[in-house]
């Protein structure tokens, strides 16, 4: 049994209550959702909060809602819910792809999207996914709500724009027609952190060319989308040569570190290889959905 340093514990009963508790207990208090990042760090005594504010009773934040042009995901939505949702699979297959390779069923039953995004581990998958999908984070604090783009929300490894007295309450993902997405990860073992991963979202124009694209990378030192690929992909017809070009650009854009998961050149190679793969899958999925759409319209 690994024993954390002493701490106090309180269960929040509502979002407002959680915010009040954060305010009351100050900077040495931490919110715990699924707990799969925070608790291991506490057991290793790498994290030593004085107070744990448990928000697992905030069922009000556990929802998935298609609301006009956006998918609204409550911050306490569990990975399993995302993985099993038909709406998610239909609208954003990148989320389903990613969830399938996040940890294991036990962790997915407990872990939440809000916890993942707020932990902002550099090898965390949903941060990349939300960047790629151009999600908006809804953060609530004593002064009300603010909406942050992922670029503003996600400041770097283990760092977000959520202040100590704020709570991420919702993630909003814009729904685009004629679009599809994909995610692929390489890991040493199921449940290990990614050696590297990539995600892509693609929108096709009526003529079949790429009208909008986003590519993101996980665990290779890039806390933003690979914007370099957009200029070369947009307006082009999908194809292997184009994907290969995008892959090369992704490999150049990333900045991985060598560790037990692999050396730098391998991770760059994966950035390249996985970028090509996710673009290939996303484009073919998008083409299939356009075809479905045409059938329905026709």
């Amino acid at each position: 049994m690994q024993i954390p340093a002493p701490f106090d514990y309180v269960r929040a009963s509502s979002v407002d209550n959680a915010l009040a508790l954060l305010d009351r207990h100050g900077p040495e208090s931490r919110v715990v959702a699924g707990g799969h990042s925070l608790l291991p760090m506490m057991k290793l005594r790498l994290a030593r909060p004085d107070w744990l504010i448990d928000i697992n009773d905030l069922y009000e934040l556990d929802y998935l809602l298609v609301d006009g042009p956006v998918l609204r995901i409550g911050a306490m939505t569990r990975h399993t819910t995302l993985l099993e949702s038909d709406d998610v699979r239909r609208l954003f297959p990148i989320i389903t792809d990613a969830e399938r390779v996040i940890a294991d069923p036990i962790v997915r039953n407990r872990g939440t999207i809000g916890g993942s995004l707020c932990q902002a581990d550099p090898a965390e998958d949903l941060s990349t996914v939300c960047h790629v999908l151009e999600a908006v984070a809804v953060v609530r604090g004593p002064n009300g709500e603010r909406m942050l783009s992922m670029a503003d929300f996600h400041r770097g490894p283990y760092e977000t724009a959520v202040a100590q007295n704020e709570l991420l309450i919702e993630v909003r993902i814009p729904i685009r027609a004629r679009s599809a997405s994909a995610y692929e990860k390489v890991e040493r073992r199921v449940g290990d952190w990614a050696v590297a991963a990539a995600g892509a979202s693609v929108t096709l124009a009526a003529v079949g060319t790429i009208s909008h694209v986003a590519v993101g990378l996980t665990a290779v030192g890039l806390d933003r989308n690979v914007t370099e690929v957009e200029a070369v992909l947009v307006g082009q017809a999908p194809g292997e040569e184009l994907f290969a070009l995008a892959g090369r650009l992704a490999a150049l854009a990333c900045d991985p570190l060598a560790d037990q998961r692999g050396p730098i050149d391998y991770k760059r190679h994966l950035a390249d290889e996985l970028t090509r793969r996710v673009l290939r899958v996303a484009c073919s999925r998008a083409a299939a959905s356009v075809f479905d759409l045409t059938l329905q319209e026709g």
Partner: protein
Amino acid sequence: MTILEDRPSNPAAGDHDRPIGHGRMQRKEDPRFVRGKGHYVDDIVLPGMLHGAILRAPVAHARLVSIDTTEALAHPKVLAVITGSDLQALGLAWAPTLSMDVQAVLVTDKVRFQGQEVAFVVAEDRYAARDALELIQVEYDVLAPVVDARKAMDPDAPVIRDDLEGRTDNHIFDWEAGNKAETDAVFASADVVVKQEIVYPRVHPAPMETCGAVADFDPIEGRLTLYETTQAPHAHRTLFAIVSGIPEHKIRVVSPDIGGGFGNKVGIYPGYILAVVGSIVTGKPVKWVEDRSENLMSTSFARDYIMQGEIAATKDGKILALRTSVLADHGAFNATAQPTKYPAGFFHIFTGSYDLAAAHCTVTGVYTNKAPGGVAYACSFRVTEAVYLVERMVDILARKLEMDPAELRLKNFIKKEQFPYPNKTGWEYDSGDYEPTMRLSMKMAGYDELRREQKEKRERGELMGIGISFFTETVGAGPRKDMDILGLGMADGAELRIHPTGKAVVRISVQSQGQGHETTFAQIVAEEIGIPPEDIDVVHGDTDQTPFGLGTYGSRSTPVSGAAVALVARKVREKARFIAAAMLETRPEDLEWEKGRWFVKGDPSVGKTMAEIAMGAHGTVALPEGIDGNLDAEVTYDPPNLTFPFGAYICVVDVDPGTGHVKVRRFIAVDDCGTRINPMIIEGQIHGGLTDGVGMALMEIIEFDAEGNCLGGSFMDYLIPTAMEVPDWETGFTVTPSPHHPIGAKGVGESATVGSPPAVVNAVVDALAPFGVVHMDMPCTPARVWEAMQGRTRPPV
């Protein structure tokens, strides 16, 4: 006789399977485990029990300047803080290891590996004990560490063991087996010689239950009761008596349910000794249970062999000779557990399953600033390393000769008629019939079809690999004439009592860590005396309740203790004959045995069942001279030889050419462990061992950085396989009974761990053949496989 049988169609035994003797039946111990009623060391709670925690060194090599325990002692819940100098005063600062070295219980002079024990806190609860560790102030003078075993013998390498008088380097031992001159001569005239450095990196057994102890010293009686996670309770008791000075009859070691051992729980760790000292000092029971990081960083590792292999053959594929020199990294203390005469364990069975003209090996052991250990993780005393070496070398030779690796093996096997086979390094293989086992595995795999599929895939640029391993194990240590551990012969005892109503209790000296002893040993008795296994209780793990013996490791329970149990049952059966004769008023020689009953020859209706005889033994019938009024017996079994189980494993992998990710698609395992007592338990052992093997081949490694920091100190860093990494195992078997074992059984517990890593690595290397890869070291992680594809294979250490 060799019998080839197909796997039974219904591998899961149901309630209807109630063999009286050998056969498939569900494990008797499982109801308590599946209902959460197992009782482990950490479940033990004694009145007034205190809790201990160990402060561990944060660096790998450092002189200890000072320890200040004042603040920790001031913690309101702390009762004692024990340091190395306290132990020194008691003469307990150093304890003997199982390899005739000594190991620091607590650091007195110098830290020698990261995670080494520095101080022990005893507190009212385990939280306080853990918190108080942070209140101990230690000053270290950090020294340059020796991390790379290859540099341990450099003239300017820091001397790790300056505690040993006269020690001026990090050399532990040189050991050799086989005939060097003869081997060199064969190599000199061979058509083909191939060489390869092969590294078996450091791995960790990582049992689900970590190590721990509850020590309860009674100062009035001078009696110590020690509940421990140990695979060898009797050996531990003797060693505790020698080290502590507490008389052996006043020590009771209890090993309750154990959550996995794999060799990790053979040695005596400082924590056990500290729990005892804590109990003596406080006068109360003290529990110490290590956490996962402590287990991974400080307890017995396995392997860490850097092997230079060479194999010689004729150009048409007759293997002539093998030789190897090994550099063995033993960590900071030589604490490997193996028979005393064999500092490299049984590594010299590296000649494998092949009929060679010559063989020679040398092994050099060195100290490094790493955790001690060396023989652990289901290795059969380093047979794992030996099998890995020979099975890789044979594959490398096959590549060189452009021969099919199955064909090369079949051509070079020791032939059935050559058994008992004396190999070139001093072993006498008791029995074997390798070709049918190999053929069965190939048939189950559809070997030719797999090769065809591989050829097609290669043409399409797909990477598919087929790996073969044919292993021979040597297990069941061992004959007292040449095997002992610290002077204790490697025998095992068994006692059997039949109660008046015909129910039995058998007491054994070996200890289960999950192997199913309570079932297997009941079945052995049942087979011999014909009462159902349900009516036979197996008692183990408590030195006050069981006869002396050396315990469970090296797959020795069935070969040694299983033999003891069979023989004690036969002794009871023979005694029953005399009692039955008295009851039937006839002569013993006029009786005939059928399972469970003695009857009068020629008149089967007149006889006595074991239950009747048991009642008779304790009853009033007049007994013949020399027959006591009971139906009990005891034996101690000294095995005449080891047993030599073997098996043919075939692994099929697919490698993603873009990422280097390896997927084990199929694994076919045909095992021959002689007589099969409970096939379901055997299959369970095989499944577990194969999973271990896939883990070691693909992901497991304990790495260190240049400062000697352990990089495998948690399950986030030390990966062990899950159900997702392993295929649906395809198991089969042949039966070649051991000629010297009373029931023909051989050990099987470690076969799959020993045999499977080379099969997986051979498959990966085979998949990478289009890239010109002839060898890559474990672990075959995606990154390392990709590097191999780039022509940049590198050793893991």
